[in-house]
C-alpha cells in the first residue's frame, strides 16, 4: 500500500454498480505515483496507543463520577427528528415526582431543545457543537459539572441527531439507548449497524403512525436481534403514551 496517501487497497468503502455487481476495486486519485516510498534515515517509534485513548479516559472519569454520586446516565442517540426530545418531554412530565431527570442536550446550534426540556421541568445543559457531529466525553464532563445532578437521579444525554458518529464516542454513560422512529423505515438497524450494535435498549418511536405506514415491526425487531442480541426493544408512542410504561419501568429500575 502506498504510504503517502494510503491508497490502493480499496479500504472498506464498497460500491455497487447499477447492475448490482461489486467492482473489483474502488480506486481514487493519483494516477502517477511520483513520491518516494521509502523513508530511509527515519527512526520508527512504536506507540501502540488507542486513538481515542483520551476520550476513553475522560469517559471513565465521567462514569466513576456518576457512579460515586449514584446517578445513572443514558446516552440517547437517533437520527434527527426521530422524536428524542418529544419522548423526553412526555417522560419528564409523566414521571414528575417519581424520578428526577436532568438532560444534556447536544445540537449543532440553538437552545430549542433545552428550552423545551426546561419547560417540562428538567434541569438542562445545552451543548452546541458548532460543526461537530457528536458529543464527546470532554463535553459531557463539563456539562455534568454544571448540571450537578442529585443522587438517585437519571441524566439523559440527548446526543446530536446522527446515526453514525455518536456510536464511536464513549461518554461515560451506563446505558446506550437508540431511538428509531417508524417514519424512518424498518431498515435503519441494518443500514446503520455500528450504532445499533452497542445499544442495550432500542426504542421504536412514533408507533401511532403505524396505521399509515408499511413499517414491519417484526422485521425491525428481528434485525435488531441479529445486530445486538442482548438489546431490549420497546415500541413507544410519545403522542398516545402507548408502550411508555415499559420505558418508564426501564428508567426507574435501580
Amino acid at each position, binding site marked *: 500500500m502506498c504510504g503517502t496517501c494510503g491508497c490502493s487497497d480499496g479500504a472498506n468503502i464498497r460500491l455497487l454498480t447499477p447492475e448490482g455487481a461489486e467492482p473489483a476495486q474502488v480506486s481514487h486519485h493519483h494516477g502517477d505515483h511520483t513520491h518516494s516510498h521509502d523513508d530511509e*534515515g527515519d527512526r520508527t*517509534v512504536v506507540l501502540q496507543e488507542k486513538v481515542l485513548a483520551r476520550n476513553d479516559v475522560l469517559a471513565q472519569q465521567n462514569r466513576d463520577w456518576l457512579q460515586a454520586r449514584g446517578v445513572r446516565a443514558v446516552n440517547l442517540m437517533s437520527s434527527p427528528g426521530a422524536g428524542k426530545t418529544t419522548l423526553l418531554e412526555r417522560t419528564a412530565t409523566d414521571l414528575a415526582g417519581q424520578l428526577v431527570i436532568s438532560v444534556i442536550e447536544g445540537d449543532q446550534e440553538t437552545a430549542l431543545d433545552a428550552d423545551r426540556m426546561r419547560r417540562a421541568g428538567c434541569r438542562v445543559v445545552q451543548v452546541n457543537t458548532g460543526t461537530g457531529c457528536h458529543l464527546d466525553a470532554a463535553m459531557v464532563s463539563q456539562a455534568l459539572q454544571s448540571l450537578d445532578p442529585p443522587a438517585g437521579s437519571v441524566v439523559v444525554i440527548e446526543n446530536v441527531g446522527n446515526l453514525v458518529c455518536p456510536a464511536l464516542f464513549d461518554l461515560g454513560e451506563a446505558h446506550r439507548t437508540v431511538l428509531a422512529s417508524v417514519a424512518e423505515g424498518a431498515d435503519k438497524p441494518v443500514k446503520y449497524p455500528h450504532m445499533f450494535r452497542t445499544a442495550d435498549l432500542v426504542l421504536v418511536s412514533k408507533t401511532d403512525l403505524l396505521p399509515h405506514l408499511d413499517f414491519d415491526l417484526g422485521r425491525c425487531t428481528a434485525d435488531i436481534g441479529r445486530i445486538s442480541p442482548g438489546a431490549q426493544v420497546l415500541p413507544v408512542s410519545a403522542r398516545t403514551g402507548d408502550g411508555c410504561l415499559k420505558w418508564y419501568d426501564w428508567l426507574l429500575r435501580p
Partner: protein
Amino acid sequence: MHELAIAESVVETVTQRLPDAKVTCVHLEIGALSGVVADSIRFCFDLATEGTSLAGAQLKITEPPAQCRCRACGSEFQPDSPIVLCTCGSPDAAVLSGEQLKIVSVSVA
C-alpha cells in the same frame, strides 16, 4: 464526519507523546468493526496535521479483518460485515478483534 475528530486525536496523541519530533509517517490500525472509514481519515489527515509537527507526514493504514467467536457453536469466524453472524446462524458472538483503532507507530526524522 467523525473522522476529522479521529484525525485530530491522532495529531494530539502524537504531539503529546513526541513533542519535539518531526514526524514523517504515521501508521494507523483501523479494525473492520471500528466504525471508522479509512478513506475518510486519509481525506482529512492533511487538514488535521496542517501547522503541526505532523504536517506533510505520510499516512499508512492497516485494516485487519474482524475475528469473532460464536457463543452458540464455539467456532471462530471472520464476519464479512458489521452485522456479526456466525455460519451456524447465531448472532451471539464475542468480538475477539476488529474494534481496534490505534496508532501503531510513527517515523520521525
